[in-house]
């Protein structure tokens, strides 16, 4: 399956890219996607995740065509 991965704000600067496409075989969770995209590095603490623009837990499963986003706590307003 194909997953679009996006990064925002300070995390985008930390990983050095804003988005990428990944291919997976079998079942994968949000944390599995992070690990494959980032050489098995641990997800920094406090990072939030969204799938298709809705907040999710890190153990949520992803599906073909999903957009998975990682970002720090929000600071708007």
């Amino acid at each position: 399956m194909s997953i679009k991965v996006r990064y925002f704000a300070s995390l985008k600067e930390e990983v050095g890219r804003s988005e990428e496409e990944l291919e997976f075989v079998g079942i994968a969770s949000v944390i599995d996607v992070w690990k494959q995209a980032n050489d098995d590095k641990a997800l920094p603490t406090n990072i939030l995740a969204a799938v298709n623009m809705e907040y999710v837990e890190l153990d949520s499963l992803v599906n073909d065509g999903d957009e998975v986003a990682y970002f720090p706590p929000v600071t708007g307003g």
Partner: protein
Amino acid sequence: MEVKIVSECFDPWQEIQQFQKTAEDMRGKFGATSVFVGTMRDFNEGDDVKGMMLEHYPGMTEKQLENIIAEAMNKWRIIDVLVVHRVGDVFPDDPIVLVAVWSSHRGDAFDTSRYIMEALKSKAPFWKKELLATDTERWVDKNTDGYL
């Protein structure tokens, strides 16, 4: 409801006037309008700040704000809601956010605007990067508690 993400400086009072002018179905129905405007300060965490860059997640921002407003409209008796939020380069005294709520009575308007503002602060994907007077940049890593 209307949610606007704008990349240019906006006038919150003009936005309210314009919204009321075009929302004909509200005419004669609302007895209360609660307005919150968030404005950029020239200081934060003890430092002088001369500018700020506001990043957002296009699409998710609008989706989350619409979810928040829908939740509020289920909870209180609201006639309509307008939310406007800036992105891009912002400077001290520029408005950052407008939350305007129209209802028949003041209680619902006050409660809803507070609810939307606090939920926006914790759920809407915006991020601020400050430019300090010393020309150094830093990401804002947390929002202040709205109830302090």
